[in-house]
């Protein structure tokens, strides 16, 4: 805005100039800056004073295992550790293979160091004190190996293998007894619900979208009714209905509440996903379909090889937004009595030993939710850049 060359040389330093331009450019701006500044100082200082002098932070390390895995049997925890380390190595490898030649951002070191220090200091004598730092190390090691050795294409296959291996790992009986899903809790349950929800709702959502946009009126009508009915119902109601109906619908087969919640969240998420994918399908120009048919592809091939890849790429940001929504929505299973992050915090704060620690607990789980959601959205941004062929 300022014509700097015509002005006489300014005596202000760089910072003063910056502040003049961005904070005090006119009277209204100056008033806004001062008001916002006072608000920021008040919020930050009261939060800081609370966090440093009043908060009883020992509730978090004392309940670390419960917050992470709920009532998962202690002697079966090796399952979660194995899964954690494998996933960490794989994430590191994938991340490294995607960002070849790039430097690791500085904040990742701070973040890794923070987690390592926190667990190493507060969890002395517990497996977490050694294994959580090991998991952090695994991410970094994977990153540097992945940068040189692993093509990112292999990792896509690896993830499918890891997914099914993890499902087996958590459900099979290895001679020491199986773990029931009702024993899952805390962050583990939140992640399990999210991952199963995302993996299961994706194909269902795509199928519904294809059905809704198909030229067959009956199929289209059935899919439309299904999508609109589910979208018009709140997730809490879907969960309640799933709790009550799923055992009845399956003819009295007794499946436990966690599996019912998974069914509920899958159906709910699929309906929203279908609408996003439909937007993508409609954005693919008709000429693409005609060209595909002209080179001799049949209907199925056209759909799978030409239309869907372009459609999904077009709506990737919306899909990730949907998945972040699903991740946050897993907290609603608290209302039907499951002990995921929000539910387990509620249980801990009603424990007589930890009365009055609601602030500390909810502050902590909010940070956990934030980290995962924010990671998903920034991951999506880099994936979007990578898939952008219009560069």
């Amino acid at each position, binding site marked *: 805005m300022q014509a700097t060359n015509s002005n006489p040389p300014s005596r202000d330093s760089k910072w003063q100039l910056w502040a003049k331009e961005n*904070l005090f450019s006119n009277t209204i701006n100056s008033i806004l*800056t001062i008001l916002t500044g006072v608000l*920021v100082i008040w919020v930050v200082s009261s939060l800081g004073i609370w966090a440093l002098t009043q908060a009883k932070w020992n509730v978090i390390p004392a309940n670390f295992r419960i917050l992470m895995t709920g009532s998962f049997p202690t002697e079966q925890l090796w399952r979660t550790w194995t899964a954690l380390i494998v996933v960490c190595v794989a994430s590191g490898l994938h991340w490294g293979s995607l960002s070849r030649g790039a430097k690791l951002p500085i904040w990742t070191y701070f973040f890794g160091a923070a987690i390592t220090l926190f667990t190493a200091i507060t969890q002395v004598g517990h497996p977490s004190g050694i294994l959580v730092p090991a998991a952090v190390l695994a991410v970094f090691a994977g990153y540097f190996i992945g940068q040189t050795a692993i093509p990112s294409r292999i990792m896509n296959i690896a993830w499918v293998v890891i997914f099914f291996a993890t499902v087996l790992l958590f459900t099979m009986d290895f001679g020491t007894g199986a773990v029931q899903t009702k024993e899952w809790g805390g962050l583990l349950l939140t992640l399990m619900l999210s991952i199963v929800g995302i993996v299961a709702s994706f194909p269902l959502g795509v199928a519904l979208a294809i059905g809704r946009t198909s*030229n067959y009126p009956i199929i289209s009508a059935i899919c439309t009714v299904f999508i609109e009915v589910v979208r018009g119902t709140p997730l809490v109601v879907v969960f*309640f209905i799933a709790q009550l*109906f799923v055992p009845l619908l399956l003819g009295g087969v007794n499946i436990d509440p966690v599996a019912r919640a998974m069914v509920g969240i899958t159906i709910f998420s699929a309906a929203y996903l279908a609408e996003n994918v439909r937007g993508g399908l409609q954005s693919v120009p008709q000429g693409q379909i005609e060209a595909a048919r002209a080179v001799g592809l049949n209907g199925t091939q056209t759909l799978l090889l030409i239309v869907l890849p372009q459609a999904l790429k077009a709506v990737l940001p919306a899909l990730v937004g949907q998945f972040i929504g699903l991740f*946050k929505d897993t907290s609603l299973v608290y*209302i039907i009595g499951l002990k995921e992050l929000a539910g387990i915090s509620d249980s801990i704060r009603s424990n007589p030993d930890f009365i009055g620690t609601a602030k500390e607990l909810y502050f902590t789980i909010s940070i956990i939710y934030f980290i995962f959601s924010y990671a998903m959205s920034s991951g999506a941004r880099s994936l979007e850049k990578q898939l952008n062929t219009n560069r």
Partner: protein
Amino acid sequence: MSELSVVSEQAAVPFYRDVKKLAVIAQVVFLAVVIAAILVLINNVSVGLKKQDLSFGFGFVTQTAGFQVAEGTAFGLPYDSSNDNIIKVILVGLYNTLRIAIIGMVLATLLGVLVGIARLSSNWLLNRVALVYVEILRNTPLLVQLVVWYFIVILQLPAISNAQPVAGVYLSNSGLAMPWMVQKPDAINFFPFTILAVVIGLSVFTFFSIQRGKSGKPIPAGQFGLGAWVLTLLLSFFALGQPLEYGAPIRGNFGVNGGLTISPEFTALLVGLVVYTSSFIAEITRAGIQSVHKGQWEASRALGLGYSETLQLIILPQALRVMIPPLGNQYLNLTKNSSLAVAIGYSDVLNVLNTTGNQSGQNLQTMVIAGGIYLVLSLTIATIVNTYNRATKLKTR
């Protein structure tokens, strides 16, 4: 699907290669599978219910409800738990849901648009603060936010006996109490006149805006409409002998009397929903404003309009067109999210139905009713938004 069959040999094409016949067959098979699946599921449910000695009727809704509801009325009619039936208690819940949804939509829009504008401010501090606000609220679950608002903020406020009033407003752990117009016994007569005032205001506005279009003179139709509305309200208010009177909350031995008191549950749910939804509306506003071409800003400034005039008269009206569909989605979400009231004990329709189900043992039916009610609400909001969208859409001829 394009037609591939060879025209000259139509008779020779077997049915499994005829695209038209295949389409019909595929749909019939699909329909049959869906119907069969539904029948099997219905059969499973009825067998399962018979095993548990339950029936799937809706006759129970005429039974006496028999439980208290903390707040709300059946759209103005008082609710008496010992005499009134379940239909009436559902109406109380529906009234509470609508109350929170409508007030929430208005407040969330106001707050969201403000934050959205702040996000685009040239003031560095303000737009960073707005960014942090949006990112924190969008990346944490609404349920956790509601629990925090209720258990950590509202319930930790001082008790009403210790609360310090600010400008006559008491904020305490028993909710919010503020001065308000209190109804006298015959206030119900005033209600039709409030509707009449809206009708008169709207007709005056329409009349003058048509006049403005015809004459081309700058008639302030909006102001005239507003004036007519206020005038009708005032006239009928005094003609009916002042059916409402000013009441300030007075602290008694057991809570406050007079004025308007809002329960802590309502306050927490409203604040939670408004703040959460505002973060999404802020992003919609930002995208909407950014979608308006830069030339519009420049042209408007060149004509001598100031920043706020440009924003109000040139930018926001154009941004609004882009904003309406996603805004409608947020209104839908807000209405559906109000069902999280269950977590903090506000008596919305789902909470009331849940209690009904637990009391009468008819959980299945009450949840189906809840689903149906929300479906109708969603479809109504979607219809209103779509109609409005069609009306304000850029008309290309």
